[in-house]
């Protein structure tokens, strides 16, 4: 997306050719096997990385896919005399299917529960395969037409095949990383609700990721069976298989294309050589190496070897970026010059929602007219944010409807609602902190543009519109509060919304920053976007909004012109309490 993958692919091919050339020089059978195992585990790592590394949902169960691939190839050859050349692609199908079957129920879980559930799948499979009588299945030796059955006397052929698969796997990883696929997964990892609200169909991406990952892992599992010629349930479904996938990736660098490759290239030879030298005296030495590697990485360099080295290299070559200051657009904010139509675009009808005994929103109805800025105000705890969450699909109302363009939005997922033209921001800013400002906004643009390049262009435009054009390449983690809020606004804007829901966009800003923000919102409204904004400070709202809706204790207290609403005794009472009523009315 930002760079074409051609150059990276060329580097990969060169590196792989060099590796292959080096392996041709080695005659020792054991080292040849090891040379084949490095790309094999690198691919397992890449497959784990594609799912867990990018999406952040830690899988302890990739052995499921690996083992299913291995057994598919083996059993097809044993029972049906089918060559692994066909068995591996079939195994990929099995892996993808397993990914779907595992993902579908398990994606309901979050965090630890997800990780633990994933652990159970391969271990259950392990016992099931033992029970089925597949304790130890050997691949039949084919003396004639051995090559047609992927059997070679010279181990170096396997190195070649494994490297070929590695190139494909890395190309897939590059494609994913540089496309909306990878960026969507990263967005999910960093803030799933924000990704969903920005129009990313989080469930669909996660499903795709686990299916691609499962297919890739199954393919390499099949190759593993061919190389080792014998499959046992513990060797392919065991915990160490899942752990190795995770360990080579975390060691090398999570969510990087090269991470699993580098991790595998360091750890596999280390463990194998130690095993060969000391294995008879220290039988578990491999496991100790992997365990120690992962403990050290977590404690010393949690981001992994590749990012650590890359950062160090960049720091040495870094030039100080000139800090540019955005000029505050000096505009006069006022509702008078806007053109507000009479057409009602959004209708909230009798919406209610209770949490336990607390009636957070109770029978609230109002309309939003095309092109207007509608302010929703009310004291803390009045139910404003809950109302937004009901409108954009984060929570379902107990009763009532939200009608947008003649269609009831209730029951739709947030990403679908975003697709229909309702963008939103959050009271507590939800950036994707480890992405650049531009990437943050691009995530929002995917809904509006099918083409990735166009999405980037659209995101750039949105940044210019909010006055952050010069900060596009800055990491989001380094932004000031007002910049974060503007970035979030740009993200919502990049989905080409017809209606923007802004949740306390002014909260925590200084007076100059408020002016800057009001200017931006006003300009958006003038350009024809309908705005619904939550705020609890009256002053700014009276200037910005065409109409106000007042909530108190979950109920609609008043609605109408700002001047009328602010004189409404009920509103004053809600804000100030009964005691101050008299003073206020003087």
């Amino acid at each position: 997306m930002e760079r074409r993958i051609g150059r990276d692919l060329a580097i990969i091919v060169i590196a792989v050719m060099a590796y292959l050339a080096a392996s041709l020089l080695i005659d020792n059978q054991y080292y040849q096997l090891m040379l084949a195992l490095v790309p094999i585990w690198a691919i397992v790592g890449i497959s784990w990385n594609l799912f867990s590394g990018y999406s952040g949902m830690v899988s302890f169960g990739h052995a499921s896919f690996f083992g299913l691939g291995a057994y598919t190839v083996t059993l097809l050859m044993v029972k049906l005399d089918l060559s692994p050349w066909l068995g591996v692609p079939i195994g990929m199908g099995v892996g993808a299917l397993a990914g779907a079957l595992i993902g579908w129920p398990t994606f309901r879980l979050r965090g630890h529960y997800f990780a633990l559930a994933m652990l159970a799948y391969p271990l259950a499979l392990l016992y099931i395969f033992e029970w089925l009588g597949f304790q130890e299945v050997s691949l039949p030796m084919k003396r004639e037409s051995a090559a047609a059955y992927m059997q070679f006397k010279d181990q170096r052929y396997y190195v070649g095949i494994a490297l070929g698969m590695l190139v494909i796997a890395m190309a897939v990883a590059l494609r994913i990383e540089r496309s909306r696929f990878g960026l969507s997964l990263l967005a999910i990892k960093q803030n799933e609700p924000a990704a969903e609200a920005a129009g990313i169909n989080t469930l669909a991406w996660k499903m795709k990721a686990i299916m691609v990952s499962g297919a890739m892992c199954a393919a390499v599992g099949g190759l593993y069976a061919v190389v080792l010629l014998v499959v046992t349930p513990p060797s392919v479904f065991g915990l160490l298989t899942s752990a190795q996938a995770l360990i080579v990736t975390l060691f090398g660098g999570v969510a990087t294309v090269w991470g699993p490759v580098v991790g595998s290239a360091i750890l596999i030879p280390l463990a194998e050589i130690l095993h060969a030298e000391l294995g008879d005296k220290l039988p578990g030495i491999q496991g100790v190496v992997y365990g120690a590697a992962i403990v050290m990485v977590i404690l010393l360099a949690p981001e992994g070897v590749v990012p650590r080295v890359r950062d160090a290299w960049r720091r040495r070559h870094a030039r100080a970026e000139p800090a540019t200051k955005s000029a505050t657009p000096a505009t006069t904010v006022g509702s008078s010059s806007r053109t507000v139509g009479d057409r009602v675009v959004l209708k909230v009808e009798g919406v209610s929602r209770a949490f336990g005994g607390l009636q957070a929103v109770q029978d609230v109805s109002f309309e939003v007219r095309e092109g207007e800025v509608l302010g929703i105000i009310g004291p803390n705890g009045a139910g404003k944010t809950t109302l937004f969450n009901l409108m954009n699909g984060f929570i379902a109302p107990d009763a009532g409807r939200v009608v947008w363009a003649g269609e009831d939005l209730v029951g739709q997922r947030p990403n679908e609602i975003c697709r229909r033209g309702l963008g939103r921001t959050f009271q507590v800013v939800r950036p994707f902190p480890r992405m650049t400002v531009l990437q943050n906004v691009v995530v929002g643009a995917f809904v509006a543009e099918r083409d990735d390049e166009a999405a980037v262009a659209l995101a750039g435009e949105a940044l210019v519109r909010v006055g952050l054009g010069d900060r596009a390449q800055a990491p989001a983690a380094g932004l000031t509060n007002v910049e974060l809020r503007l970035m979030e606004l740009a993200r919502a804007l990049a989905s080409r919304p017809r209606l923007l829901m802004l949740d306390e966009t002014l909260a925590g800003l200084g007076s100059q920053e408020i002016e800057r923000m009001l200017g931006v919102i006003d300009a958006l409204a003038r350009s024809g976007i309908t705005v619904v904004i939550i705020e609890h400070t009256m002053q700014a709202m009276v200037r910005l909004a065409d109409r106000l809706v007042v909530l108190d204790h979950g109920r609609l207290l008043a609605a109408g012109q700002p001047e009328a609403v602010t004189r409404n005794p009920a509103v004053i009472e809600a804000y100030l309490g009964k005691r101050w009523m008299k003073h206020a009315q003087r």
Partner: protein
Amino acid sequence: MDALILTENVLQALAAGILVGSVYGLMCVGLGLIYGVMRVINFAQGDFLMLGMYAALYLFTGLGLGAALGPYLGPAVATVLGAAILYVLGVVLHQTLLRRVTGIRVAGTESEGHYPQLILTLGISLILANAGLIVFGSMPQSIRTPLSASAWEIGPLVGQNLSVFLNKARSIAFLVSVVVALALFLFIARTRLGKTLRAAADNPEAATYMGIDVDAAYRVAFAIGVALTAIAGGMVATYYPFQPYVGLEFVIIMYAGVVLGGFGSIGGAFWGGLTIGLVQQLSTLVLPVQLQNAAIFVVFLVIVLVRPEGLFGRSAERI
């Protein structure tokens, strides 16, 4: 007659389930305590169980406890001594490794902050299991006493044909587990240190303001959790042959029990473990032995997917 045999089998499985399940309950309490206080899912808990088994075994044979104290008391004393060693190991591991990824700093962060802990304990688990293989060898062992092959007979109950046999080693394990679990509950509920642990678990930040050393509380909780599971391990060792990879067989049982009891609830963890024991033993009535463990995994998955807050949990906890 068939009905009689069936009844006998069911009663037998029930009795075995309760005996074995209580030991599972104790190991679950260990894992649950660590999670409940530190919010760390300890992957290495199964390996601490394994170390508890070997510690008990070597103390039992090395100190000649079987001859000195007899088959009833000997293994129990060896187990408790072994647990003391594991307690020290727990303190050391917390001090050197876990402390760096847990504590106040992490407690407040979203789930991303918890992955390093999970992965760190995975690393510890791999090291312990494989170092165990190097040190102890792969030969299955057990704490051999005459009790593992003898039973108390309850009955005959109906007529002369129905009686339930309680394996003596399992029965002792059951008694020890129940007593230790009760002692822990009293400790948590009544003592000052127990209250400290609960405070640190409930709100580490507020606990700090109240003058509680949260790191120290975590250390104690971790070490006690390790020791409790080690006691369960020592008891299992009296009736079940084990090798260094045995932890993996039990770690899923523990997860299942803890999830079943509601993550974070220590009492629930015991009942969860007991339930898993019953499921495991009753499943032998209908399933082949090889699928016993698969059955546990399936039960575990069903629980996590259908009712992640646990059967005994009061409310769903979001982690």
